[in-house]
């Protein structure tokens, strides 16, 4: 007998598996319904039912199906493979995993965690107690989580003498509520978990009900079909290259969310707008697949060596493009320990991108029970609100009604996921125009055979942009020339781009004619955009570029950052007093230009821009 068993690859028989979540207000009978389902479908371990009945008899308490779950929990503690939070049972059609989501509000985050993985939901309402706070809150959250198939079980019908009116009343009110939050209930079923009415068999107690039992309904739920007909979306998880192992493939990896992709398709990445053609769909230990479809963790190689990074969304050219913005209108549910407030920096994660964000407006806070609105300027724990966020950088996304998967996000507060949300609209921000140009430019960019990497190796440097700013009086140009000379002497490919080189030629059509052409220049934004465009060409050529401008603001630096394809940007403030809100990397006193230039050179060396040793 050898040490290792080498198994031949073989096909395996697999049944379909569906995840169902059961939600509802505390004590409305979720456990009883599950207990019944397990018992009546014969899914319990042998003798379990008798054992629980016997226990009840001995302790002279009435048997309840909910006790089955408790018993399973005890057993789980002894290592039997049944999970209390997840119950397994099967029908002729398929296997089910039922996730029992806690009804207590303290466990809302557990409910969200459980529900987000489900393909359909059972929502339980107590016929006697009626619609309660968490009946509506859970309903609302199901809608935000994107669960479309919801069967509402009006439970404990035995306690209201199987009265049809009670049922119809709840049905009417709750259906109206669901409609308001954008869900159409798949069906309503009057049940008694305690007596088993309409759980797995039709109830004789409610002849007025002619619909499905819970079990029939489960089998009628659609297994989430693959959204192959939607536009292709794949958030990039990483670009992998394992050359040290002798593998020269450069693979763009990620999980397909919607649509399909195959070799030969033209892909466009957002927010950068870069594009190329898919060369191969990659895999391991399997033949190359013809295509990648939603749900597949996959990867592909490209025809061109374009520079893209984690966080971009891959789309297919010719299909609907992603949206790009820095300002999004959202519906948010907040689970955080601390309130969601303005003037605090959060992180927003959409797909695989993660970006700093601030809350700039709370449009309204909704009461999940009656959907009434409240005007507040913060969002408290377990509240749902419409909010506008300002993002630090461009982000690619879709509106939730266009594509639920790329139209949702989570918010990180103090290292924790503290809330989730869906994007309902975007706001045009001041960069919209600039960004549209950039996306179009990148789409149309003529690629050369010589890529960025090759140039870097030849020039022993990475492209970088050194921006020297300061008040009008400071001698920025003098410093810029000194930096240029020092780097040139060190063997770098460097260029000082004076603003005059741009203003009188490239900007001739918008140059201010009056003498006052400083900050009040109405075309200042356009001047800076064009400077950015010229810089972008030189950076693409592999240069280290030194530019100067008077009193640049944080916003203007952001705009330059939007315009140039990511090189290293180094912002230098020259002068003692900083007169704008700019965030600089280096602040220098005026005077000794040689010393100042060598500080900048050292900075570039430390940031890995210059490979040459400093002279």
């Amino acid at each position, binding site marked *: 007998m050898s040490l290792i068993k080498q198994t031949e690859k073989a096909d395996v028989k697999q049944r379909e598996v569906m995840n169902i979540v059961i939600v509802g207000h505390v004590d409305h009978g979720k456990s009883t319904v599950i207990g019944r389902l397990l018992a009546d479908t014969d899914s319990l371990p*042998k003798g379990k039912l008798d054992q629980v009945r016997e226990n009840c008899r001995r302790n002279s308490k009435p048997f309840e199906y909910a006790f089955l779950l408790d018993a399973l929990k005890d057993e*789980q*503690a002894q290592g039997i493979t049944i999970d209390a*939070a997840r119950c397994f049972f099967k029908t002729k059609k398929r296997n089910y995993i039922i996730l029992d989501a806690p009804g207590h509000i303290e466990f809302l985050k557990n409910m969200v*965690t459980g*529900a987000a993985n489900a393909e359909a939901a059972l929502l339980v309402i107590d016929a006697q107690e009626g619609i309660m706070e968490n009946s509506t809150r859970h309903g609302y959250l199901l809608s935000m989580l994107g669960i479309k198939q919801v069967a509402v079980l009006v439970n404990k019908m035995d306690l209201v003498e199987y009265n049809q009116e009670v049922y119809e009343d709840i049905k009417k009110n709750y259906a109206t509520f669901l409609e308001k939050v954008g869900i159409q209930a798949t069906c309503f079923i009057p049940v008694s978990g305690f007596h088993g009415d309409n759980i797995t068999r039709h109830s004789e107690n409610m002849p007025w009900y002619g619909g499905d039992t819970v079990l029939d309904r489960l089998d009628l739920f659609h297994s989430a079909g693959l959204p*192959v007909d939607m536009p292709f979306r794949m958030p990039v998880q990483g670009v992998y290259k394992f050359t040290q192992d002798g593998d020269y493939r450069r693979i763009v*990896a990620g999980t397909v969310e919607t649509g399909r992709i195959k070799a030969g398709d033209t892909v466009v990445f957002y927010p950068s707008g870069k594009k190329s053609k898919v060369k191969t769909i990659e895999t391991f230990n399997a033949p190359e697949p*013809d295509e990648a*479809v939603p749900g597949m963790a996959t990867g592909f190689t490209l025809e061109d060596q374009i520079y893209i990074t984690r966080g971009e969304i891959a789309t297919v050219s010719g299909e609907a493009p992603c949206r790009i913005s820095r300002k999004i209108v959202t519906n948010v549910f907040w689970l955080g320990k601390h309130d969601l407030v303005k003037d605090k920096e959060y992180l927003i994660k959409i797909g695989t991108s993660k970006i700093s964000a601030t809350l700039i407006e709370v449009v309204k806070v909704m009461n999940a029970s009656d959907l009434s609105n409240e005007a507040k300027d913060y969002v408290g724990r377990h509240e749902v609100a419409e909010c506008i966020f300002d993002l630090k950088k461009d982000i690619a996304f879709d509106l939730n009604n266009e594509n639920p998967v790329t139209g949702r996000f989570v918010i990180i507060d103090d290292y924790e996921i503290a809330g989730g949300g869906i994007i309902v609209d975007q706001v045009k921000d001041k960069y919209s125009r600039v960004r549209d140009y950039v996306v179009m430019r990148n789409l149309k960019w003529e690629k050369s055979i010589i890529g960025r990497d090759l140039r870097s190796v030849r020039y022993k440097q990475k492209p970088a942009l050194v921006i020297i700013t300061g008040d009008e009086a400071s001698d920025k140009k003098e410093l810029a020339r000194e930096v240029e000379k020092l780097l040139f002497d060190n063997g770098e490919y460097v260029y000082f781009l004076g603003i005059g080189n741009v203003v009188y030629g490239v900007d001739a059509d918008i140059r201010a004619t009056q003498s006052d052409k400083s900050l009040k220049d109405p075309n200042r934004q356009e001047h800076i955009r064009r400077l950015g465009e010229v810089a972008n060409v030189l950076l693409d050529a592999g240069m280290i570029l030194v530019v100067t401008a008077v009193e640049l603001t944080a916003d203007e630096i952001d705009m330059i950052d939007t315009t140039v394809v990511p090189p290293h940007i180094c912002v230098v403030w020259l002068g003692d007093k900083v007169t704008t809100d700019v965030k600089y990397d280096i602040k220098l006193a005026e005077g000794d230009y040689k010393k100042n230039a060598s500080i900048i050179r050292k900075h570039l060396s430390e940031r890995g821009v210059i490979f040459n040793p400093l002279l």
Partner: protein
Amino acid sequence: MINQLTHLDRLESKSVHIIREAYSNFKNLCMLWSIGKDSTVMLWLARKAFFGHVPFPLVHVDTAYKIPEMIEYRDRLAREYKLDMIYGQNEEALRDKKTFPDGDCSRIECCKRLKTEALKNTLAGTWKRYRMNKETGIYEVDSNTEPYTGVIVGVRADEEGSRSKERYFSPRDRNNDWDVGDQPPEFWNQYKTDFAPGTHVRIHPLLDWTEVDIWKYIQREGIPTVSLYYNQGDGKRYRSLGCYPCTSPIQSQASSVAEIIEELESGILSNIAERSGREQDKEDGGGLEDLRKDGYM
């Protein structure tokens, strides 16, 4: 045209996605490999995720009481798959014979010393790590003592009680403590990948897999496994592998993967815990919650 994914396809893709998320978010990342069937499937999923490569080290906590075949199998696969293989152990307890087989302590205490303590200190870099030299195949003391901030672990929710309460990305604080009652929410493929300095995150790509899923995947992919899992003619096989003084085989005729799948699906084992052959579980009141709160896998 592909219009449906099978259950195994879905499990595989989700695990690959999680492993890739871990790789992108943790600079000091490692994967625990216990040589058993689950973590070997996980290793395979890592190769799926990175198209045949494993771009982080595999860490094995060697109690020195592993069934010898397991160590041989480990090193053989490490060479074959070009793995960055590391092991660590509680050298002091072994040297001073402070173990259960030496009669010094209970099974639980022994687990704490040889596994939990060894694991904690190997991950933290406070004890020696041994790294396989890829040229010679020989283990050498690793000069890297930086702590791992992300640790990929092959636990499954259906194995036993405390594991069913896990998240895919589960934070541990400075003392390795796990706050079961207050875990972060996880939804829409978004996990906890941000963490405060000094803390680390356990990543569980196999959480949704069941025992039979594991065997079906081994079958589908043709993954090599240790022979101890199979009946070799004496009507016994190991269902879960651990240290030999504390692990016993079950009665079984299954001598191939297909037969194991058949055995599991027949339901004859459904009332017997998968880890029933693991004696330390019984000492821990049945669940591993106490051991696991303390840092056990």
